[in-house]
């Protein structure tokens, strides 16, 4: 999963896009080392384990669990993976772009 996430972040680095992580590793030092090894650039909330407060509030039962939100913060997709995830993000970016175009045309 991580290579694909990296690719996504790299491909969309000049777009209004953000990958926000909620990390569930137990060992903070291990997590930091792995971030360096894999070249992870995105920010993650630190939960200290899969039973962290956000994981419980968000009813996370499996990993990874992925939500895609549009620019208004609305949940638009749940658990899209791979190409599906790319398409979901591209669709929402297009929506945002169209909205801005419509605004500037007024």
């Amino acid at each position, binding site marked *: *999963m*991580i290579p694909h*996430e990296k690719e*996504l972040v790299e491909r969309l680095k000049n*777009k*209004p*896009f*953000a*990958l*926000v*992580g*909620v*990390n*569930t*590793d137990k060992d*903070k030092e*291990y*997590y*930091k080392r*792995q*971030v360096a090894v*894999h070249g992870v650039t995105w*920010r*993650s*909330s*630190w939960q200290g384990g*899969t039973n962290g407060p*956000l*994981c*419980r*509030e*968000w*009813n*996370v039962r499996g*990993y*990874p*669990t*992925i*939500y*895609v*939100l*549009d*620019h*208004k*913060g*609305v*949940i*638009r*997709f*749940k658990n899209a993976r791979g190409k599906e*995830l790319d398409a979901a*993000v591209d669709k*929402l*970016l297009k929506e*945002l772009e169209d909205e801005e175009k419509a605004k500037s045309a007024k």
Partner: protein
Amino acid sequence: MIRSDANSHFGSALLRGALALVLVAGALAAAPAAALDAPREARTEQPKPEQATPSDPVAVERRAKELAVLLERWRANETAMGEDYKAWRAATQDARTQGLPREQWPASPLLGWFAKNEELADLGQPDALVWCVQQVSTTGRELAAILACKDRWYGKLVAEHADTSALEKALVHLRVEGSPGSLPAARAIELLEQAARNSTKPAIQAKALSALIEPLSRSGLADAPARRKALLERLAKDYGETVEGQRAKATLNGEVVLTIGNVAPDFTTKDAEGVEFKLSDYRGKVVVLDFWGFW
């Protein structure tokens, strides 16, 4: 399958106990099978001869004394079962080292104990009730007799021992009833509702209500989804301090709040460096929110 396994365990040494068991099983198969078919009212008033009415202090005290005696007897049984088990394990080990075939290994001592523990269960000793509920399926009796026993024993546990750790243990078994070969889902639901009503401890009430969701989902009742939701809401609202209440809140959150088309609830959190940030910091951008880990 279970039946033939159980029968093969009867060694000659255990023959007496086995005979007693067969007699007990025979009697049970005849009587409570009929009770199972009897109307609900008749069944609920049947098993309470020794139950004390709270308004009668003499009876309450007498029952407390009886239970103390029964507890002593149960502890004695437990110790003796422990000894039997140790001896059986050693004998099995010997048989294995001698290279004997599996059929010649010693029989489990469990069946020999069943009649003794069952007597205590029928007198209402709560730990013996749980032991019997757990073990009765391994006795090789007719299913109707097994279910009639379970029905009666669970009934005693929820009626007379709703505040005990024994009931808490029983809830673990009660929650998986309601599938083929076990108690009907409707009866499991009824028992769990009684447990929640009878217990004065919020922790036990929450466990019983949470356990209820499982047989309810298996019941196929038309109103099961609505009742499930009502239970989750009650757990989330009235039992927020318990694990079950928190789990209910999360389940409701997952099903109701965190659905496609809703605005994601905001959160404030810290990254691994201790720097605070909010989900809403990213408003205006398309966001992939990813629960992940390297592990």
